[in-house]
């Protein structure tokens, strides 16, 4: 992997990918000790408890939903896609950073991905789990969700393959499967390390089962590398395809503000933007709390901030083009849609979105901002909120004012919309806390490959 001695890299002499002085043994020890040796810190219990309590809100909402139906939420005609669909898009977007980091950056041999890929993949998986719940709960009769899959059913009919909602089922389920496989395959050598280092029998058996008999032989490594590369190849198109198809949910509809060819690239960029914001949001406190500054260095922070800036600019271009083509189309409905976004009942959402997503990331041009972790963290929060607002504006403003003034309406999320959203945040963090406690959050064996010790002298 190491084509050039990392410490001679002229551009990054001050901020290397990994802190100097680390060895194979110390890396393995430091990362595995978080799971195996160190006493579970008090903040972990506090964080887990809070997340778990919030998670109960989700269970409560879903139970209530199964009894009452989706009338529980604020959705109604004309706004039939309220917070359930916008939260779906928000969560699925967050997942994209994980896939980008693990697949595309692997194929591009970006070594800095090594210390954040495991964590980002876990985040992807957990975010997709949240996202998947929304459309299923939105079905009205979620217990019949399997009808979405084409199987030889007794009804003698197939699902509607011409509907983008159908494509969504395939896109999201493929995405979840490939992400889970990628994550698990990447974990196998580390499971073996944990198995060998665990002290008690039950943990040895548990990690041993997950390690699937990994012995670290040359043949194992050969097959492993091959499988990992193949999975990366499979996952690469998913970075683009998943959110493209999510954008089709809107773009295929003929509603002003939805029916635009810019939607796929604009959605994909937005997804990566939101995803990197979430990775930063989570890694900044984590590296501090677990003392992982040696692994997740300032170079990572800079790189992630730069990706955020780049995708933020693409998203900004998308907003400008939406407004421009609304005017340039000469279509009165398109013009009204843009005017309504800027001056209508949801204007404050639109302008808040512009401030969050176009104005805020401009600070990332400045190196001092990128180096200040507190500011970077705050920017990540603002971007996450901004991306939520973006989906709100897209979903709600187009639906609440369509072609016929007689069918205009307003949308107000109900209490249950919020409990479901807060509940999914709780579930997400519950899974994340369990992950950092029981699995190595940084890939141990991949870290070893980027150490100076791994550089073989010819």
């Amino acid at each position: 992997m190491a084509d050039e001695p990392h410490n001679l890299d002229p551009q990054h002499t001050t901020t290397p990918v990994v802190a100097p002085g680390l060895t194979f043994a110390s890396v393995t020890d430091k990362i595995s000790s978080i799971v195996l040796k160190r006493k579970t810190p008090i903040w972990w219990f506090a964080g887990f408890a809070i997340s778990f309590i919030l998670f109960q809100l989700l269970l409560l909402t879903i139970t209530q939903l199964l009894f009452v139906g989706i009338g529980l939420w604020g959705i109604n005609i004309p706004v039939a896609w309220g917070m359930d669909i916008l939260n779906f898009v928000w969560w699925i977007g967050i997942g994209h950073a994980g896939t980008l980091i693990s697949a595309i950056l692997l194929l591009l041999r970006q070594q800095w991905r090594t210390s954040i890929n495991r964590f980002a993949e876990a985040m992807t998986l957990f975010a997709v789990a949240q996202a998947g719940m929304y459309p299923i709960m939105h079905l009205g009769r979620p217990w019949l969700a399997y009808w979405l899959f084409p199987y030889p059913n007794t009804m003698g009919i197939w699902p509607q393959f011409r509907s983008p909602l159908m494509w969504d089922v395939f896109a999201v389920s493929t995405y979840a499967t490939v992400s889970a496989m990628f994550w698990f395959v990447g974990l196998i050598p580390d499971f073996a390390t944990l198995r060998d280092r665990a002290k008690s029998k039950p943990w040895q058996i548990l990690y041993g089962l997950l390690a699937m008999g990994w012995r670290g032989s040359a043949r194992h490594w050969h097959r492993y590398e091959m499988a990992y590369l193949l999975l990366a190849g499979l996952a690469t198109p998913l970075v683009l395809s998943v959110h493209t198809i999510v954008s089709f949910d809107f773009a295929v509809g003929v509603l002003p503000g939805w029916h635009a060819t810019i939607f796929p690239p604009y959605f994909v960029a937005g997804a990566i933007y939101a995803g990197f914001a979430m990775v930063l949001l989570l890694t900044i406190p984590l590296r501090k709390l677990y003392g992982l500054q040696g692994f997740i260095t300032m170079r990572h922070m800079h790189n992630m901030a730069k990706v955020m800036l780049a995708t933020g600019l693409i998203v900004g271009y998308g907003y400008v083009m939406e407004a421009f083509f609304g005017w340039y189309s000469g279509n009165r409905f398109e013009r009204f849609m843009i005017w309504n976004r800027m001056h209508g009942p949801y204007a404050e959402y639109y302008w808040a979105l512009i401030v969050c997503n176009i104005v805020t990331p401009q600070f990332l041009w400045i190196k001092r901002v990128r180096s200040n972790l507190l500011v970077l963290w705050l920017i990540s929060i603002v971007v996450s909120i901004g991306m939520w607002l973006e989906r709100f504006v897209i979903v709600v403003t187009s639906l609440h004012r369509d072609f016929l003034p007689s069918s205009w309406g307003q949308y107000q999320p109900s209490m249950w919309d919020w409990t479901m959203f807060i509940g999914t945040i709780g579930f997400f963090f519950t899974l994340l806390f369990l992950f950092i406690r029981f699995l190595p959050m940084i890939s141990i064996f991949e870290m070893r490959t980027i150490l100076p010790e791994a550089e073989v002298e010819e």
Partner: protein
Amino acid sequence: MPQIFHHSTNALAKLTIYGAIFILVAALWVTAELNRSSWNTGQWVERQQPVQFSHKHHVGDDGIDCRYCHTSVETAASAGIPSTETCMNCHKQIWADSPYLEPVRASFRTGKPIEWIRVHDLPDYSYFNHSIHVKKGVGCSTCHGRVDQMPIAYQASTLQMEWCLECHRAPENFVRPVSKIFDMEWRPVNTTKEEIAEGKSLVSKYRIQGANVLTSCSTCHR
């Protein structure tokens, strides 16, 4: 350090991984079979009635027309269940003292209808009308089977949507001439060219709509 797992675990692990595919396929297959089985659909299951009534005797042996009892089959959505008075038309005279018919006479005396057990129960979300089917060349036996051979009535078809669509997608394979509607013995034979052409000509004669109308959601789910 001692081994955590016994050597045999290797074989077990391989078995689980390969087995998973077969288990999954088998589970799907079993589910599909169970869904279509009479355990789920109620097909072939004989329904015991409060009176020991035999369709075989009345239709097969006596040759009573379906419409004598199921009077509204040509005019209404429901074919209709005969009133006790219909039974008594004959049974005032014949088998008038039979102990088997005591529930019928009791119903006649008190005016309380006999509580027949429904044999064919379509779900409420599907709209079905007997009269249109009978008028457009669908005979009784196409759906209800050889009622003239049923001592105790049972459901002859699955009543699942794929079964409905079999005909709605290709009515020419099932329709029969007007004279044969109440014929228990008539069976569609679509082997020769002439027979296939006859089915098609019947479809145009009855002016049966195309599959786009017959298989539109709202044709049956209104």
